[in-house]
């Protein structure tokens, strides 16, 4: 069985940067990633992007090219289309079970870096399970990886990704029909106190202003302060409904993209039993780490958005920092010398975050959906059923599994997890920390038995 000093899970910006730096420091590194190509979701299909596609997707996306090229040249072993489904400790090492599509195999590593990024927060609104409704990320993936665009689309929710997607669709020549911001009408006023500090991250503010300008110039309808949002359709989405200041709106469309911000992907850090803390302004659980991004589980590090939402530039810096730290722990002399400079850049890059978190705080109506709204899509469990089960004695997400099978469908609670926590907390009148989160057990994803028949060791 091959032994590595570092196994990196995820080949997005954090994973690629960490693997590149760790290899440069002379460590033996392997990178495991579920996708067929490096880039993660933010730089999805970056190696195939034509000049036209780069022009549509913008300069920040194009930055992924150099990162991917550096990673390819780094000498790190790289297993694409590979799922890490189990990890165990043995004799001071981690034994990792991998599913490669062509059977299972096992490798060993001294340290792990979880670089599995973020997932979109669920947006449980009436009609969100209808065909024709996707995450905003899904529409962006269609654009990045497949050159696909949606005609007659409404983008709804809140967050920078919603505006970025609108801007990219406009650049592709297929503007969305409307952008509908769900939540309070005074988002900007609420965020203003955080603006002075955000000025240190002025590049992000300029980028945001550019998105709004693109929207205006293209004549895209931009609704703010929408509430009571729901999607109409029998069999598939045909329109969206919402209210603004008491006035009802209905917009016909054939595609709806939902977005309410992103949260750290919790699956792997939870499976590894890392401690998590509730982050009140990110409205998400974040793995507890020391200043070197080592989690409560010794030897398990987390970088990128999985360590708390910070964006792609911070993901790269965190990845490099972790790589240098692990190199130092492995005895590479002088490896930590660059860490203070990286910390300064991280601090500057994070300056805009409190402003963004206040500006795009998730709308209360998706954290506390109406009784008839489906929360668990797989098992079709409504918010009302969850409220009833909580009233009937289920104190948290794990007991809801037994009561309602909620979170026990094929997605294993990936989609509904944050929504279930939010709903339990509000129903019981307790904090999200006290409400808790789904336990995650191996296998990390359902595996066919055939995968286990021959665990190859190499």
């Amino acid at each position, binding site marked *: 069985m091959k032994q590595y000093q570092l196994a990196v899970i995820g080949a997005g910006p954090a994973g690629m940067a960490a693997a590149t730096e760790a290899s440069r420091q002379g460590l033996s590194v392997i990178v495991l990633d579920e996708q067929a190509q490096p880039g993660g979701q933010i730089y999805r299909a970056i190696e195939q992007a034509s000049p036209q596609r780069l022009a549509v997707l913008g300069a920040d996306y194009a930055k992924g090219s150099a990162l991917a090229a550096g990673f390819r040249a780094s000498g790190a072993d790289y297993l694409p289309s590979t799922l890490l489904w189990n990890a165990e400790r043995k004799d001071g090492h981690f034994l990792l079970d991998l599913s490669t599509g062509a059977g299972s195999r096992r490798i060993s590593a001294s340290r792990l870096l979880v670089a599995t990024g973020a997932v979109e927060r669920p947006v449980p609104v009436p009609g969100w399970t209808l065909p024709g409704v996707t995450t905003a990320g899904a529409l962006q993936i269609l654009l990045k990886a497949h050159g*696909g665009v949606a005609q007659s689309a409404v983008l709804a929710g809140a967050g920078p990704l919603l505006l970025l997607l609108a801007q990219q669709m406009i650049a*592709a020549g297929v503007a969305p029909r409307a952008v509908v911001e769900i939540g309070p009408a005074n988002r900007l006023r609420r965020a203003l106190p955080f603006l002075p500090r955000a000025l240190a991250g002025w590049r992000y503010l300029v980028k945001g202003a550019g998105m709004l300008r693109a929207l205006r110039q293209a004549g895209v309808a931009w609704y703010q302060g929408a509430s009571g949002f729901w999607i109409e359709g029998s069999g598939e989405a045909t329109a969206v409904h919402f209210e603004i200041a008491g006035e009802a709106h209905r917009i016909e469309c054939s595609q709806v993209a939902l977005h309410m911000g992103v949260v750290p992907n919790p699956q792997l850090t939870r499976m590894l039993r890392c401690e998590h803390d509730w982050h009140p302004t990110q409205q998400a659980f974040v793995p507890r780490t020391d200043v070197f991004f080592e989690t409560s589980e010794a030897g398990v590090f987390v970088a990128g958005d999985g360590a708390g939402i910070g964006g792609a530039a911070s993901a790269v810096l965190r990845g490099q920092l972790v790589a240098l730290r692990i190199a130092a722990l492995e005895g590479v002399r002088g490896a930590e010398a660059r860490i203070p400079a990286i910390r300064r850049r991280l601090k500057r890059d994070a300056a805009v975050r409190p402003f963004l978190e206040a500006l795009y705080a998730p709308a209360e109506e998706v954290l506390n959906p109406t009784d008839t709204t489906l929360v668990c899509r797989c098992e079709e469990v409504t918010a009302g059923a969850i409220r009833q089960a909580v009233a009937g004695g289920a104190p948290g997400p794990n007991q809801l599994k037994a009561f309602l099978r909620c979170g026990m469908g094929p997605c294993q609670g990936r989609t509904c997890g944050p929504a279930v926590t939010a709903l339990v907390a509000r129903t019981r009148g307790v904090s999200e920390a006290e409400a808790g989160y789904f336990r995650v057990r191996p296998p990390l994803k359902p595996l066919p038995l055939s995968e286990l028949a021959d665990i190859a060791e190499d």
Partner: protein
Amino acid sequence: MLKRLEPVPAGGADKEDEGLEFDFEGTRISAAPGDTVAAALMLAGIRTTRSTPASGASRAPYCLMGSCFECLMEIDGVPNRQACMVAVRPGMVVRRQAGAARLALTGGPEGGL
């Protein structure tokens, strides 16, 4: 409606395997290099890819990044494949999945699937 910015490359001069075509319930679907099954179907105008076990409601791919499991389909006779994680290969046979296909699993989340 979803559409492609660039046309799907046609099969090359030496034909046969050049074009990425596959079978979806008797219909030939053309894909572009790099397409996943889910993306190819969506961009070919296919609106639903499965129905749910509980109510039989129609569903379609939701996240396209392997997280939501809404894209479960039967691919080359194997049920419960995540169509957004499977690259198109020429000649594949893809079907919608109706209800719960039994998962042959070793475990799954607490209590199994």
